[in-house]
């Protein structure tokens, strides 16, 4: 992703930098974080245009893990990459080996 992609993330629906599959995933993420009860039939129909149910389960699991831990880390007052950035801490074993 480029810096412009990041800038467009908060207004992803109107951005031409993301495809429809990415937009569906981003809307799912937004609903999970900010408005879980707003995940209505329209959202699920849109998700199913691009993902299998198994992919939706896996994506949701990834987002909820990341979201919850980001919220904790925010109370620690630690910014991204501020701790152990020059180490392999936090990387999957396969990434460390490669």
């Amino acid at each position, binding site marked *: 992703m480029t810096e412009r992609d990041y800038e467009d993330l908060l207004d992803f629906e109107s951005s031409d930098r993301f495809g429809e599959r990415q937009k569906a995933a981003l809307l*799912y993420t937004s*609903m*999970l*974080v900010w408005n*879980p*009860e707003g*995940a209505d*039939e329209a959202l*699920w129909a849109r998700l199913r245009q691009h993902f299998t*149910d*198994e992919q*939706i*389960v*896996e994506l*949701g*699991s990834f*987002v*909820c*893990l*990341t*979201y*919850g*831990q*980001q*919220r*904790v880390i*925010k*109370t*620690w*007052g630690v910014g991204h990459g501020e701790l152990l950035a020059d180490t392999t801490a936090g990387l999957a074993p396969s990434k460390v080996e490669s």
Partner: protein
Amino acid sequence: MAHLPGTAAEIRGRVPAVLESYEFIRANVLRGGVADPALKDLCFRYLAEDPETMDFDRFEGRERLALDWAHAIAWDADAADDALWDRLHAEFSEQELVDLGCAIGFELGQQHWRRTIGLPARDEPAQASRS
């Protein structure tokens, strides 16, 4: 209405790696770990908006502290200021703080995921042991 059929455990089970990772976290952090499990459960009930947990003035000591931190994690990270951290460090070891904080974060994410699917934030007690 739920958007995927089955219990939370059955839905996770559609992707074995998802179920396996959740079961590991449940055993080692949500239920296990070094912090008091009853304290964790109190925080999880607050995240699920259990009416009996919403008035923090009913609680004191470690319970009140844990709820204050759970509130900061879920709603207002700025509330985790130096004063709150001083109180947390006075009552908990660093290991307990890591365990409790990560447990609150994991549970917060799981409850949001469940609500996105159309499930209640937490299982009824009879179901909880299975999911």
